[in-house]
C-alpha cells in the first residue's frame, strides 16, 4: 500500500510541477493546490497507514493507528485552503490591474533595472 501511495504522490508532485511551470496564472494556482494535496498525502503515508485499531482508550487493541499525522494534515489543509483563497484574490486583482494573466507579459522593468 505504501509503495502505491509513493507512486501516487510522485505523480501528483509531477503534475503540480508541470502546472506551476506554465505561463497561465490560473494553472499555476491549480498547481499549488495540487502540490499541497501531494504533501498532505505524503504526511499521511509517512506516519504509517492503518496499523491497528482506532486510537480510542476503550478499544483494548494490541496496536493503535497513529492519530498525529491526521491532526497535522487537518492543520495543513486549513492553511493551504486559506492561502489558495488569498492567491486567487490576488491573481484576480492582478488581472484587473495589469490586464493579463500571462506570466511572461507580467514581467516589468520597474525595480529590475
Amino acid at each position: 500500500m505504501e509503495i502505491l501511495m509513493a507512486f501516487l504522490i510522485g505523480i501528483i508532485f509531477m503534475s503540480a510541477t508541470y502546472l506551476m511551470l506554465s505561463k497561465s496564472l490560473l494553472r499555476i494556482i491549480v498547481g499549488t493546490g495540487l502540490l499541497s494535496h501531494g504533501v498532505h498525502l505524503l504526511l499521511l503515508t509517512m506516519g504509517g497507514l492503518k496499523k491497528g485499531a482506532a486510537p480510542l482508550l476503550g478499544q483494548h487493541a494490541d496496536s493503535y493507528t497513529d492519530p498525529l499525522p491526521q491532526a497535522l494534515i487537518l492543520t495543513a489543509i486549513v492553511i493551504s485552503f486559506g492561502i489558495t483563497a488569498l492567491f486567487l484574490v490576488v491573481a484576480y486583482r492582478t488581472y484587473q490591474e495589469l490586464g493579463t494573466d500571462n506570466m511572461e507579459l507580467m514581467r516589468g522593468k520597474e525595480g529590475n533595472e
Partner: protein
Amino acid sequence: MNSLITLPLLIPFFTAIILIFFAKNVPVQRWISVIGSVATIIAAIFLAVTVYTEGIQTMNLSNWEAPFGITLVSDMLSSLLVLTTSLIAFVCLIYSFKSIGKEREEHYYYPVFFFLILGVNGAFTTGDIFNMFVFFEVMLMASYVLLVLGGTKIQLRETIKYLLVNIISSALFVAAIAYLYSVVGTLNMAHISVRLSEIGQSGIITVIAVLFLVVFGIKGAIFPLYFWLPGAYYAPPAPVMALFGALLTKVGIYSITRTYTLFFTHDIGYTHGLLEILAIITIVIGVIGAIAYSDVKKIIIYNIIVAVGVILFGVSTFTTEALTGSVFYLIHDMIIKAALFLLIGIVIKITGTSNLKEMGGLIHRYPGLAWTFFIAALALSGIPPLSGFAGKILIVRSGLEAGNYWGAGIVLLSSLFVLFSVMKIFMNGFWGEAREYKQQEKVPVRSMLVAPVILTIGAVLYGLGTEAIYPIISTAAETLSNPEIYINAVLKE
C-alpha cells in the same frame, strides 16, 4: 507552568483582533497599537530577564506533558530575538504613523502588522517543529497582505512571485517534517534531538537535513534560493520594507541555526560543510549586488543577503565562540537593517526617486538625516566601537582558528565592500550640490526621523555596551552549542 512566555504572543494577537473592530477610526487604531506594542516590549523584557536569571522557560500548552503536546520554549536566544522583534515593531509602528498613509491605515494595516509580529515571535518561541510551520504560515500570511496592501502594479506583480515561492517552500517544509516524523516519530524539538542522537546520522537524516536547509534557505535567502528577495522587498513602502528586511529573513536564519545546532549535529563534515560553502557564496553574491546597483533600495536589500551569509558562516563554523558571534551579529543586523530601511524611506520621500544618480546634496537641508545615516552606515559595516564589530570579530577569529582562512578572509573583505556600498549612498546622495525636488517642503522629516534615530542610538549602545551584553549573548550561544541544556529544560529529565 509559566505563562509569561505566552505574553509576547498573546498581546499582539489580541491587539490585532481588537484593531479589526476599529478599522475606520485611525486615531483609535494608533493608540491601541502603541499600547499593544509597548505592552509587548514590557512582556519581552520581563521574559528575557527571567530567562537570564532562572534559565530556560518552558510551557506545555493545555498541560500535555512534553513531548506529547505542543511546548513553548524560551531560551536566551529566542527571548533576545523576541525582545528585538518587539522593539523593531514599535519603532516601525511610530514611523508608519507619519508615512504609511490614510488609505492603508483604513484598510487593516495595523491588524495585519500585529499578526506579523505574532507569527515572528511565535516562530522564535515554539519548541515544536510542526508548530513552527504554523507560526511560519501566520507570519507569511500577514506578509502577503502587507506586501500587496496598496495594490500598485509592482506590488501585485511581486506578490504573485513571493506567494508562489513561499507556497512551494511551505509544501517542502511539510514534506520535510513528514520525513523527519517517519524517522523519529516525534515533533517536539528537544525529543527529536534525543532520538536523532540515539540513531546517529544515517543517509536519510542527511537528506532531511538538506531538505530543511532548502526550506529555511528560501525564507532566509541563502545563495541559490535568494532570487525572489531583491524583487519582493523592493515593492512595499519603507516601514513594511524595514519590517521584512529586519525580521522575515532572520526567522529563516534562526530556524537554520536552531535545527543545525539541535538536530543535525552528527555528520557535521557534510551538513555544516555545505552550509559553509553556501554562506560564503551568499556573501559574495550579496556584495556584488550591493556594489553593482545605483538604486538605494537595492543596495540595502543586497546588504541583507551579505548579512545572511556572515551569520550563517558563523553558524557553520560551529564553535561556541562562532555561535556567540553569530548571535551578536544577528541582533545587530536586525536593528541596523531596520534603521537603514527607514532612513532610505525618508530619503526617497524627499527626493521622490530611489535612483542615486538623481539625488544629491541632502546634507545641506537635512544634516540630522545625513549624520544619522552616516552612523548607521558605519555600524552596518562593523567599524569599532559600533555594533557590527563585536559579532564580526568573533566570527572571523573562530573561522581562522578552525583553519578556514578563505571563509574568514571573505567575511573580512565583505565588510570593506559593504562600507563602500553604503558610503556610495552617502557620497552621491548626501554630498554634492543641493538639488531642487518636487515635494521638498511637505515631508515631515523631523517627526519621521525619530524612529531611525531610536534604532541608531540602540545600535551605538549595543556596540558600546558589548562588554556588558557579552555574558547574555554567550549564555545564548552556550545553549546552542550544548543541546543538552535545551533538552533537559524541555523534557526535565
